[in-house]
C-alpha cells in the first residue's frame, strides 16, 4: 500500500462516511453540511488522481453553489431546526420503504463491486502530475470537445429559462377568460 493509497483510502472513507450520514441524518441542514464534507473529500480524491482543475471546479460549483442552493431550498421549505423524531408514516425524512431501499442499495453495491473487482483486479493507475491542469484541459475542451461544450451552453440556457418560468408566479398559462 503506497502513501497515495493510504491517503486515498482515508479520503474515500470520509467521502463515503459523510455520504452515509447525508442519507441517514435526522437533521436536514446537517445533511447539506455533510454533503459539503463529502464533496470536499471527493475534491481531495480528484487532487490525488491529478485532476487538479476538476477538484477546484468541484469545490467552486458544488460547495460554493450547489450546496448553497440546497441550503437555500431547505430554508425556503421551512425545515424545522433540530433532530427530527424517527417514527412511522409521519417521519418527515424517511419514507416507508427504507428497508427495501436498503436491500436495493446493498444489492447495487454488491453487483457493482463484484463487477469492478472482476474487471479491474490488476489495473494500476500510473499517477503523473501532468494532465490535470487548466491548460491541457482547456486545449482539449476547445479543440476536441467544442461541440459538446456548445451544446451544453444550450442546455444551460434551457435550464435557466426553465428555472425562471418555474419559480416566477406572475407568468403562467392564461386561463380561459384571458386573465393571468
Amino acid at each position, binding site marked *: 500500500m503506497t502513501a497515495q493509497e493510504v491517503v486515498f483510502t482515508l479520503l474515500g472513507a470520509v467521502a463515503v462516511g459523510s455520504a452515509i450520514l447525508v442519507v441517514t441524518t435526522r437533521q436536514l441542514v446537517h445533511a447539506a453540511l455533510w454533503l459539503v464534507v463529502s464533496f470536499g473529500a471527493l475534491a481531495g480524491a480528484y487532487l490525488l488522481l491529478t485532476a487538479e482543475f476538476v477538484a477546484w471546479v468541484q469545490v467552486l460549483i458544488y460547495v460554493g453553489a450547489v450546496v448553497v442552493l440546497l441550503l437555500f431550498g431547505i430554508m425556503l421549505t421551512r425545515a424545522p431546526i433540530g433532530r427530527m423524531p424517527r417514527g412511522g408514516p409521519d417521519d418527515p425524512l424517511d*419514507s416507508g*420503504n427504507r428497508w*427495501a*431501499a436498503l*436491500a*436495493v442499495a446493498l*444489492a*447495487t453495491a*454488491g*453487483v457493482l463491486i*463484484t*463487477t469492478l473487482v*472482476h474487471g479491474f483486479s490488476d489495473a494500476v493507475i500510473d499517477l503523473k502530475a501532468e494532465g490535470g491542469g487548466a491548460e491541457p484541459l482547456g486545449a482539449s475542451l476547445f479543440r476536441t470537445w467544442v461541440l459538446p461544450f456548445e451544446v451544453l451552453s444550450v442546455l444551460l440556457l434551457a435550464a435557466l429559462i426553465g428555472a425562471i418560468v418555474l419559480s416566477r408566479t406572475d407568468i403562467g398559462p392564461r386561463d380561459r377568460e384571458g386573465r393571468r
Partner: protein
Amino acid sequence: MIALVSLTIALPFCAAFAGMLLGRRLSRTLSARALPAAGSAAPDAPTTPLPAVVPDAAPAPGDEARVPELSRLAGPDLALRRLPRNGPALIAIASTALATLLALIVATTVWLDPGTREGTLTLVPTGTVDIAIGLQADGLAALVGLMVCLVALAVQIYSVAYLAEDPRYCSYAAFVSLFTAAMLLVVYAADLLLLYVGWEVMGICSYFLIGHHWEDRANSRAAVKAFLMTRLGDVGFLIGIFALGIGAGTFSIGGVLDAVPDLPAGTLTAATLLLLAGVAGKSAQFPLHTWLPDAMAGPTPISALIHAATMVAAGIYVIARLYPAFWAAPASLTVLGIVAVISMVGSALAALAQTDLKRVLAYSTISQLAYMAAGLAVGAQTAAVFHLVTHGAFKALLFLAAGSVILVAGSNLLGRYGGLRRTMPITFWAMTVGYAALIGLPPVSGFFSKDSIIEGARHAAATAGREGTGDTAAAVPDIPGGAAWAIYIALLVTVGITAAYAMRAWLMTFFGEQRGSFQAREAPALMTWTVAALAVPSAVLGFFGLGAAELRPHLVSAGLALLWAAGGGAAAYLLWNRDPARDPADRLGPLRTVFDRAFYLDELYAALVVRPVRAAARAVVVADRRGLDALVVGTAGWSRRAGGALRRIQTGNAQSYLTGLLAGVVVIAAGVVILL
C-alpha cells in the same frame, strides 16, 4: 334501336337527378323572370311551404278549412298557370314526354317489323357467369314500355295540379322519374340481373313515394310495410334468378330461355317457384298482397302509377317474359293459378265492402292482376299481356279520376260522395268508361281482354287431362284439370263480384244526393283533361286485340261473363236503389266486416308472424341481457377485480416505483454478471 331504348331509359333517369338538383333553382329562375310579366301577381315560388293537400283516409277535422284552398284551385285554374314556373315538373314532364316519343318509335318499329332486337352495352366479368348490361326490344317489351311511358306521362301531368302546393314536389317528381326509368329498365332488360336492378330500384322508389307524406305516422308505416313485404318476395326472386342463371350458365334472358329444355325439371320448378315469390310480392298476390291496400296512403297519382298500372304489372310482365320457363314447370303454373284464384275472389269480395274509394280500387287491382296471373296459368299468355295493357289504361284512368273526386270532396270515403254526376260531368263519363272496362262490358277495352282470358281458361279446363290434342288453336300447359276448372269458375264468379263492387262504387259516387259538405265542382282542368285523355285508350284499346285470333271475343265465354256481370251489377243496383243514402254493402250483414277487413289476413299475419317474432325478439333480449350481457358485464367485473388487485401497486409514490425499477435493473445486471 338499342341506343333508342337505352335513351328511353336514361332520359327519366337523368331527369330524376336533374330535377332533384336543379328543380328548385329552375323554379326560382322562372318565377323571377315571370315576375315582371305577371305584374301584380303574387310571386309564390313553389319553395314556399304551404299546407299540402293530403287526401287522408279518415275524415279530417279540417275539411271545412280546406274549402277555400280547394276553391282557389278549382276556380281560376292556377295549376295550369303555374306549370311554366314549376321547375321540377317541367324537367320531369319534358323528359317523360321525350321518353314516350322514343318508346313510341321503338314500338312502331317493332310493330312494323316484328322480331327481337338485342344489344349488349357492356359485359361485366365476374369470374363465373358474366353479367351482360344488355337491352332488348321485342313486341312484348315495346308494348309494355309504351304503356309505362304513357301512364307515367299522364301521372306527371296530373300531379302538377294535384300536388301543386306540395313543398316536396322536387323529390316527388324526381322519384316518379326515377321510378319510370327503373320500370323501363325492367321492361327492356335483356339480362336477369339488370332486370333485378330495375326491380329493386322500383321497390325503393315505391317506398319513398308511398311515404311522401311521412309527417303522418300511418303513411310511413305503410311505406315500411310495402317495402318489407316486397322485399320478402324479392329474396325468393333473387335466389330464383341465381338458380336460373347458374343452371343455364348465363344471366341473359334469351340465353336462359334457350337453355330451358336442357334444364332438369327440379331446378326449373324450384327456380320458377322462387320467382313466383317475388312476383307475388311485387304484383300483390296472395299471400303477400296486404301491402297494396295500405300503400294507398301515398298520393293518388302514385297509386295510379305504381300500384295500378306499372309496378305491380312488373311481376306479371316477368312471368310473361320468362314464360317458356314457366311453361316447362307446370307445378309452378298450378301454384300460380291457385294463388290467382284465391287472390281474385278474395280481393274482389274485400273490394265489395271497402268504404274507402282508393281501397276499393286497390283490391280491384289485386283482383285484376290475379286475372292476368290466371291467364298466364292457363296458357293464355297473349290474353294476359293484353289485359295487362288494358288494365294499365283503365286502372290509371280510375285512379286519376278517383283522385279528382277525392280532391273535390276532400275525403277518401265513399260515404261522403254522392250526386257528383252533374257537377263533375267529365270525370263522371271518364270514370264510367273505366268502370265499364273494369267489369268487362262491351265494347270497352276490358271486355276484350277479360273475355280472352276467360276463353283461355275455358279452353284449358276443357282440354285438361286430355293428351295429344294439339289441334286446337292455343296450346295448353300441363296443369291439373281441377285447377283449370277452379280457375275458370273463379274467373266467372269474380266477374260478377267485380260488377257488384264497381256498380256500388259508381252509384255511391255519382248518384243520389250529396252526402258530404263540400263545394262540388269540376276538378282543375289539367287533371280533368288528363283523365279524359286516358278514357280514350280505356275505351278503344280493346279493338286492337281484334287483330289477333286468340284475342277475339268468343260467344260462350262472353255470354257467360256478361250474364255474371249483369247479375252482380243488378244485385248492387237493387240493393242501392232501396235506399240511395245507404251503403249497399251494409246488406251483407256480418260478412261485411269480414270483407272490409280482407278476411282478417292482416290480423292473421299479426297473430302468426308479428307476435311470435316479437315474442322471440323479447326472448332474445332477455337472453341477451341475462345471458350474454351478464357474461360480458361479468367479464368486466372480473377484470376490474383483477385490476383492483394490481392497482394496489399503483400507489402514485414515485419512490416505490423507482425502488422496483432499480431492483429490476440490479437483478438483470446480476444475471448478466453471473451468466456471462
